[in-house]
């Protein structure tokens, strides 16, 4: 559904370097990384909102060469709804209906009702959560195949986040739609994401199945004097405190060391992010 090959983008003081990943049809991918890691640059490139090097295919179409088709196929949810703020929700429906070929006004009305939004409300009067829902309603009404959400859960309360996760699961039910969403709230991802892509300082740290990621790394802690030269090379993002240390390590590498010397525990997505960042910074 979405294929990114060798995406590069340079800003002053920041570089997104050779990013490649793919998201198959029918699945949900979480894009994670700390602020400034390159998430928004990636999303803006997918939307063809900025110039970039590399290739981005959406449902087999190049997103620059077939920009018109691409806009029909993607639904986007960003921080601020991109609709004119003085429009009522009813007017938004008319406006979007003129732009999208596959616009379904009935679906739009139904979704507004389901989300508890009155058609006479103005875009400017919407709360953060309502703004997200309005964009979702628009995306689902023009039969978007790929839903791209930039930090959709930040600023939403837990109940609204749960509702959003439910809508996303419903969206991928028939297996023909995909979701890419960036977030730094990993609890959402740990539940519903099928795939995870981790960016660290403009570089790809991991892309692949979430379950494989959770199995790939573990956290080890213990006395630093027990760390051999060999082991030191395998540790990712080591942090020392007093005589002790903690670090991340690939589970299949850790097998070669004396497990009795150290404590180990499963790594959560947050942990992986923190250790990857620490490793990139050192």
């Amino acid at each position, binding site marked *: 559904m979405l294929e990114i090959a060798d995406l590069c983008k340079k800003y002053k003081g920041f570089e997104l370097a050779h990013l490649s990943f793919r998201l198959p049809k*029918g*699945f*949900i991918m979480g894009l994670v990384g700390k602020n400034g890691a390159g998430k928004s640059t990636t999303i803006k490139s997918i939307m063809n909102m900025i110039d970039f090097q590399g290739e981005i295919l959406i449902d087999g179409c190049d997103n620059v060469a077939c920009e018109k088709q691409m806009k029909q196929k993607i639904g986007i949810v960003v921080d601020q709804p991109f609709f004119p703020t003085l429009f009522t929700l009813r007017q938004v429906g008319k406006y979007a209906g003129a732009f999208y070929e596959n616009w379904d006004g009935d679906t739009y009305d139904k979704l507004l009702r389901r989300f508890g939004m009155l058609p006479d409300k103005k875009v400017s009067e919407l709360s953060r959560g309502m703004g997200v829902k309005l964009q979702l309603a628009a995306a689902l009404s023009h039969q978007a195949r790929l839903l791209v959400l930039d930090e959709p859960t930040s600023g939403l309360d837990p109940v609204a986040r749960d509702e959003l*996760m*439910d809508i996303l*699961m*419903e969206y*991928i*039910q*028939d*297996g023909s739609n995909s979701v890419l969403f960036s977030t730094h709230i990993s609890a959402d991802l740990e*539940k*519903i*994401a*099928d*795939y995870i892509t981790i960016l660290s300082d403009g570089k790809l740290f991991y892309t692949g*199945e*979430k*379950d494989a990621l959770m199995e790939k790394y573990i956290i080890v802690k213990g006395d630093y004097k027990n760390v051999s030269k060999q082991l030191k090379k395998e540790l990712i993002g080591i942090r020392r405190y007093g005589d002790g240390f903690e670090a991340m390590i690939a589970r299949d590498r850790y097998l070669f060391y004396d497990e009795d010397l150290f404590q180990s525990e499963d790594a959560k997505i947050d942990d992986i992010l923190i250790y990857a960042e620490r490793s990139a910074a050192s």
Partner: protein
Amino acid sequence: MVIVIKNNSNVPIYDQIKRQILNAIMSGEIKEGECLPSIRGLARELKVSVITTTKAYNDLESAGYLLAVQGKGYYVSERSNEILRENLLQQIEEHFDQAILLSQRAELKKEDLVDILRNLLKQGE
């Protein structure tokens, strides 16, 4: 069939799903030939990833408990109870093996070992 996911459990989620489906088959709650919820439907209900429910179903299918019918979904296989029983028998044998090994270490006579089993069975009644 009710499947309950514990998020803070040490057991991986796909394994939790597998175990609970097996329990439901064993207790007769779902019967041979019965259709299971779809992979995507179950993922949505449990709020877990589609890959997780796919893995659970695939594992159960390759072990012979489920049958995948193209375009229709997953069914409890006709042989599922038989396989479950075979598995249980195998586990019983393994435990007995273990007990025999321990009895040899403790230099217990065969009759005494059998007596222990008899007593335990009596207590269980």
